[in-house]
């Protein structure tokens, strides 16, 4: 099941990190941090592609012994990282894609809020709700 979801800003600091309680937070944070390298590599490799959502989805960044990390980058270089348990083999690529799409949509909702300053940690309850829903889902 979902181990955690993180949103990282363009400057590579976290805007939002949330993980299932069972997982040790520190390890999750560490995993997200290390995955940023892979994300950067993928971004630079793909080049300046424009807006094709397929290229926004970075796919499986790398599998480790316990979990798999998926990445997604927006056009404004905000990165979403989802870490899932390796034992959950039922999660298909499409599902991950749809999750990212949902995340992206909620993220844009947050950004549309004029009271939200870009660069601030995300404190939107709606966004929290979406993330919680996703973490519980496919549990």
């Amino acid at each position, binding site marked *: 099941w979902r181990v955690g979801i993180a949103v990282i800003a363009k400057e590579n600091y976290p805007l939002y990190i949330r993980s299932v309680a069972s997982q040790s937070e520190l390890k999750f944070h560490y995993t997200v941090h290390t995955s940023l390298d892979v994300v950067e590599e993928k971004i630079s*490799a*793909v*080049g300046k592609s*424009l*807006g094709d*959502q397929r290229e926004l989805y970075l*796919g499986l960044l790398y599998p480790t012994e316990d979990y798999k990390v998926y990445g997604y980058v*927006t*056009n*404004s*270089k905000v990165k979403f990282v989802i870490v899932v348990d390796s034992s959950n083999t039922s999660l298909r690529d499409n599902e991950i894609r*749809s999750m990212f*799409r*949902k995340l*992206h*949509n*909620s993220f*844009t*909702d947050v950004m*549309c*809020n*004029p*009271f*939200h300053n*870009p660069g601030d940690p995300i*404190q*939107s*309850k*709606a966004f929290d*709700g*979406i993330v919680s*829903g996703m973490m519980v889902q496919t549990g």
Partner: protein
Amino acid sequence: MEQESGAASAGTFIPLNEREHGFYSGLHALCQADSSGTGTLSSCKVATLFKASQLPPETLHKVTEVCGAKRLGYFGVTQFYVALKLLAAAQSGLPIRLDSVTTNLPLPRFVGLQIEPELQYSTIPPGADVQGAPCGSGPGSSSWTPADRGGTFRPLETNTEKKEAWSPPRSPCASPPRSPVIYHSYPYNQQRNGLDAQTTYESKHSSRPTAQLEQHSSPSNYGTKPTMEHSAIAQASSVERLDQQAVVYHCNEDPWRITGEQLEYYTNQFKSLQPDLGALILGAVAKHFFTKSKLPIPELSHIWELSDVDRDGALTFSEFCTAFHLIVARKNGYPLPESLPVSLQPGLTQQEEHIPDTPEDQSIVELQSGSTTKTQDKTEESSQQDTASVRAGPAPETLTLRLPAFPQRPEPPQDLDTQWRTKTRPRSYSSTSIEDAMKKAEEPPTPPPRPQKTHSRASSLDLNKLFQQGAPGLKSGWLLHPPALPPRPSTSQVSQTQQIKVQQPNFADFTHFREEEESPEKPDEQRLCSRFGPSTEDLTNPYKQEAPAGSHSQAPQKPARRKYHPETPNPDAVPPAAVQFPPPNKLTQRLLSKQKREIQMAIRKNKETNAVLTRLNSELQQQLKVAHQERVTLESQLDLVRPLAST
């Protein structure tokens, strides 16, 4: 004593207005000892009721004494009513005498009584007089609902003199009187008073048309539906008089429902921001406006999330009303709901669903329970993001129940949902403004250094004058800068350099024009300028180097040069060599020395220009190299990625 006459007929002696009558009868029913209808009330229940009023015991004793129950030994209807009136008076600070009974008083407040389920928001208010609750609430509440809802509180809904703020379950002692919350920034002055306002109520009896907001003691102590805010936002004329004015309790109504006055006020506010009622208020404008309410930013952020239902970053009229209403509620002390209350749904989908989280809403039984708005919101959100099939599910539900409360635009909710969906879905796939901004930001950095140098240089060379005096055709021709350069910044610069370049070949061709009358060096530039008109597309980097050189000498002698006509061949052939002047002209001997001087001056200037252009050239070459390298790497990466793209 007067109790005798008081006992005569409750109705005549004690002036009760409709509301009080209803309330009192409700309380009376509450305290009924038995269902025999004898009219005597169980003293225990009465005692608990009195205790619930939270008056000191001696006051209660006095009340009992005055109303005659003590004498009678029991509470009859009359006594009970008198007692209630006296309690109200006591709570208002008036002395407990029968004279007080005659005045129009707010209803007495009782803590811990579950007076009406519809009025209460919490099942049993915390910290209340619990004794009263089990004692009287059971039978009382059931009897309340049918009887009193109709009688008592219908009148309240009208915006008449019902200023008393009664909230029986509210514990007066639980919260200190709130400092008046005044929207200074808002054009109207709503002052929310605390319990102290009670004392001022009697002075406000006559202020009839003014509906004001009173203030809640604390959000957690809502016993009834504090509907103050609905009534409060009054006409603009009453705005100034809002202070200390009692509130009209629309006890029967949802606090989240916007009354007509409020709506009118919101409309005016909307118009002040955006004259067209059908248009949108942009996010920044709304932010500025709502920030004036002095609510903390996270709360404003949450309010925005609740009210911007179509998630477009702007507020429609209904969204604006919703947001404004939420702000008003929040200022009044209502906790913000987790999801949009039913009655604040953008008018189109006024479902009678269960009111969400706020404690005061939970016991609104009259609103039919459907799916909670929370789930509705979630489904809305998810439907916005997922397929249409998900949406179709909740949509029929939302359509079934609709409250016609809002004079909103009559769009069916499904349309709105579709709008939301279509609005949100494309959003994620199209480039956002951030992306565009980023793209634009990426472009400028590269070119700027180059043009500036030569630009400044060129202006020092008085190229501007040159261009102004140059043939217009030439100038336009110059603007066709070489394609290798990024278009935006270098246009003018290139044109200048090109023009400068033009002049350079002048010198190479100088000898051809030597025979002409005009001064040898300078006129060539002019000629070249016109000559280059047709051939600008051939201009490349080399030209730039030469152009400034020639322009130096061009400037001082411009007027004289117009005679020359383009006759030299394509200046492409002109190498960017240093200027080499032929020996003094053969025109006339007398001009020789003068020309020499001019030539030397021109040489100097041209050398300077040449140096600048060489520098420019080297920079451009370097950029060209970098671009080539990038291209090569990109191509190689493309080859690498190509097999990956299929995965």
